[in-house]
């Protein structure tokens, strides 16, 4: 009584898993060529066959190389700095730099090989933005950077022993931080105010980590002269939960729920970014129906992210009504997400190779209803605050940052666009079909809280434009998962009725997806900037290293500088406008 028919016994004829063969990116010839040019200019070695031009620089020459890249080759945006540990190698660490050139729309990766007991020069003298990234590399790997102004732990606490992302660190250890371990933080007083003599006493004040106005577990220590902040330092890591280490001990699929918890305000964008990074490594592409759903839901999530940001920012300034007006459509957006995947805040909707399940039949009708109702709510808020003198006085000229500083700190997303720099990953490196839609990148001048508000408001309208065009095009027909049993679980019908599919199903759950050996980086435009995932695969079911490039991290390190010279209420308003999400900041 066998149900196994002749046809169903031969279900898949595509390529077999290639985990023994190295990963070859499709754009390798182009990046090799550009990498060779830059290597010749800088006198560095080149690593071939990568998805980005990759140079290997000696640790003595890295600062000179970075300076030359910044000043002569216009790599003005320091995107990321992170480490990778290869314990079996003679020089076990790779310190990785990623730079971006706005003029050429080009990315560059630099690698420095570093031994365990070696130190290297800090890049903070060239790019201010590498300050916290170097602290993170020190915290996670124990890499020491000479000349760093403040090289201490950033994500873990003072009582933590060892370096968590080293391969020989046992993740089962627990470290208890008691009150006496916590270092007293005294912020440096800004030189502009150091010698100003006022009648007031100087007070050091702790804002947070549990403070109703900080939207998450953020701690800011400020030194006040009267009401003016003359020195500020931010302390983070209260929500650190080892996202990157957890990925190393789980399979590729199991990391998708973890990415939900990065920027939980726009979780689908994180899902998409991570899944597309793994898909790039596997050399597969999700079907067009899945890409379409990813695009529509990403844009809805971006709108939801901005709604929360603007709504809570206005609450900080005492405008509670706007919060209710903006949260109503957000609620409806989460309803749409829930109808697709069964959860509102933490959807875990995408899978590597597509979507978990097809969108519901009424998806487009619901999306259209939302697109119709959203402008009314945005307009209402605009009417309330746009020409309101109280609001304008609270935001105009508050916590400004110059375009040069913003780039130097590694700003991306709405906060960079508020400085007048039109950098948007959806335009510069289009993915899931953004290039086929007619939309604009909004910018504003000034880089202050007001400019950030203006950019976000306009961005929601642009997202609505994309959504309206997408809805007009309609859902593409076809499946939502790739037809590859080494990546996608077979349909349940086959699992229940065919031995072949049951075996594939079993293999995929037990042995996971096994991408080819190699490394890759993929970036998406998150709610508050470029969200990137760098993945190293060693051919096994667990990623060797997952690095997420958190946009908040780069933005928040400039916060201390931005609020110096402002008052506490203005600092709160500025914090809301930066849209710092602790889940992403601390990972």
């Amino acid at each position, binding site marked *: 009584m066998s*149900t196994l028919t002749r046809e169903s016994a031969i279900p898949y004829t595509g390529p077999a898993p290639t985990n023994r063969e190295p990963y070859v990116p499709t754009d390798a010839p182009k990046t090799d060529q550009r990498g060779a040019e830059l290597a010749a200019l800088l006198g560095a070695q080149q690593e071939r066959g990568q998805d980005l031009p990759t140079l290997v620089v000696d640790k003595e020459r890295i600062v000179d190389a970075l300076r030359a890249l910044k000043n002569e080759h216009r790599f003005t945006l320091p995107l990321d700095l992170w480490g990778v540990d290869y314990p079996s190698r003679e020089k076990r660490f790779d310190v990785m730099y990623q730079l971006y050139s706005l003029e050429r729309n080009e990315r560059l990766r630099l690698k420095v090989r570093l031994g365990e007991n070696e130190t290297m020069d800090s890049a903070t003298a060239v790019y201010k933005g590498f300050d916290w990234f170097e602290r993170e590399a020190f915290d996670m790997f124990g890499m020491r950077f000479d000349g760093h102004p403040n090289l201490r732990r950033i994500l873990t606490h003072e009582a933590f022993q060892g370096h968590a992302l080293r391969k020989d660190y046992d993740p089962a250890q627990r470290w208890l931080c008691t009150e006496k371990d916590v270092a007293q933080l005294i912020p440096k007083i800004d030189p502009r105010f150091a010698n100003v003599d006022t009648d007031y006493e100087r007070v050091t004040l702790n804002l947070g980590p549990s403070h109703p106005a900080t939207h998450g577990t953020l701690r800011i220590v400020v030194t006040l002269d009267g009401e003016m902040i003359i020195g500020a330092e931010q302390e983070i890591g209260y929500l650190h939960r080892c996202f990157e280490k957890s990925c190393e001990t789980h399979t590729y699929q199991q990391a998708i729920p973890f990415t939900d918890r990065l920027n939980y305000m726009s979780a689908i964008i994180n899902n998409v970014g991570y899944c597309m990074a793994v898909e790039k490594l596997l050399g597969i592409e999700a079907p067009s129906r899945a890409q379409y759903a990813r695009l529509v839901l990403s844009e809805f999530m971006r709108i939801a992210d901005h709604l929360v940001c603007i709504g809570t920012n206005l609450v900080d300034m005492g405008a509670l009504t706007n919060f209710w007006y903006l949260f109503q459509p957000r609620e409806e957006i989460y309803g749409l997400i829930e109808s697709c995947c*069964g959860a509102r805040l933490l959807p875990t909707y995408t899978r590597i190779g597509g979507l978990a399940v097809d969108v519901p039949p009424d998806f487009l009708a619901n999306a259209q209803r939302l697109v119709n109702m959203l402008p009314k709510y945005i307009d209402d808020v605009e009417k309330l605050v746009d020409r309101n003198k*109280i609001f304008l006085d609270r935001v105009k000229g508050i916590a400004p940052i110059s375009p040069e500083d913003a780039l130097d700190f590694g700003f991306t997303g709405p906060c960079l666009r508020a400085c007048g720099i039109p950098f948007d990953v959806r335009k510069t490196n289009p993915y899931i079909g953004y290039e086929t839609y007619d939309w604009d*990148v909004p910018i504003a001048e000034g880089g202050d809280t007001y400019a950030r508000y203006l950019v976000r408001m306009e961005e929601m309208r642009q997202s609505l434009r994309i959504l309206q065009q997408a809805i007009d095009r309609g859902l593409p027909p076809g499946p939502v998962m790739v037809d590859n049993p080494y990546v996608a679980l077979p349909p349940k019908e086959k699992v229940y009725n065919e*031995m072949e599919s049951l075996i594939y199903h079993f293999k995929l759950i037990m042995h996971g997806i096994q991408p080819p050996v190699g490394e890759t980086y993929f970036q998406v435009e998150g709610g508050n900037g470029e969200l990137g995932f760098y993945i190293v695969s060693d051919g096994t079911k667990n990623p060797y290293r997952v690095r997420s490039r958190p946009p908040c991290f780069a933005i928040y390190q400039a916060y201390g500088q931005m609020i110096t010279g402002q008052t506490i209420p203005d600092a709160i308003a500025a914090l809301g406008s930066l849209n710092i999400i602790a889940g992403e900041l601390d990972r």
Partner: protein
Amino acid sequence: MPIERVKPGVVRVVPRKLTFAERVYLPRVVAGMFLTLRHLLYNLINYKKLPIISYPEVKRVYSERFRGRHILTTREDGTTRCVACYMCSTACPAECITIEAGEDERTREKFPVRYDIDLLRCVFCGYCVDACPEDAIYMTRDYEMAIDTRARAVVGLRDLVVPPNFPVEPMGWRPYYGPLEKKGTAGGTGLGQPLREAPFEDDSTPPNPDLYRGA
């Protein structure tokens, strides 16, 4: 807010110039009051349309994909469909499922003697449902899981197993939607098939799976 085109694909948001009436601030505050008043009146007249749910008297009904508390389904004869294959606990990213397998004396089927889900560890991602090859674990639309001790967060077979023909209506995230023909895999593991007496008498005889599965 007016926008002006800077170059293709980039627009600049230009703040409006304030008129004298707007600069003296009181007129705009009054205008804002009128807007909120309009909302208030609209809501008072259409109070039935208010997006408010008087929980717990009224409860929100989530979609058929809602990922709530789990259940373990049963066959028509009352035995659990779960065959303790450990697929769900392997797929679980939160490592919240603990299974101990036992063997049915009568049918030689593997079945769970212990199946615990720690609901405080569970992240409700639905991976267990996707991983199950036996149609045994479903998620319901039940989202009320308040407990008073940590120990009560661990739910076992007694809480999870539902009677046969448990209505599909309260179900949430499930392995498939719509009708699906289940004939069982080649050889069959009992899905929808009546259970048969084991053809061997005692444990000393090594079980011959072909003999048992044949026919």
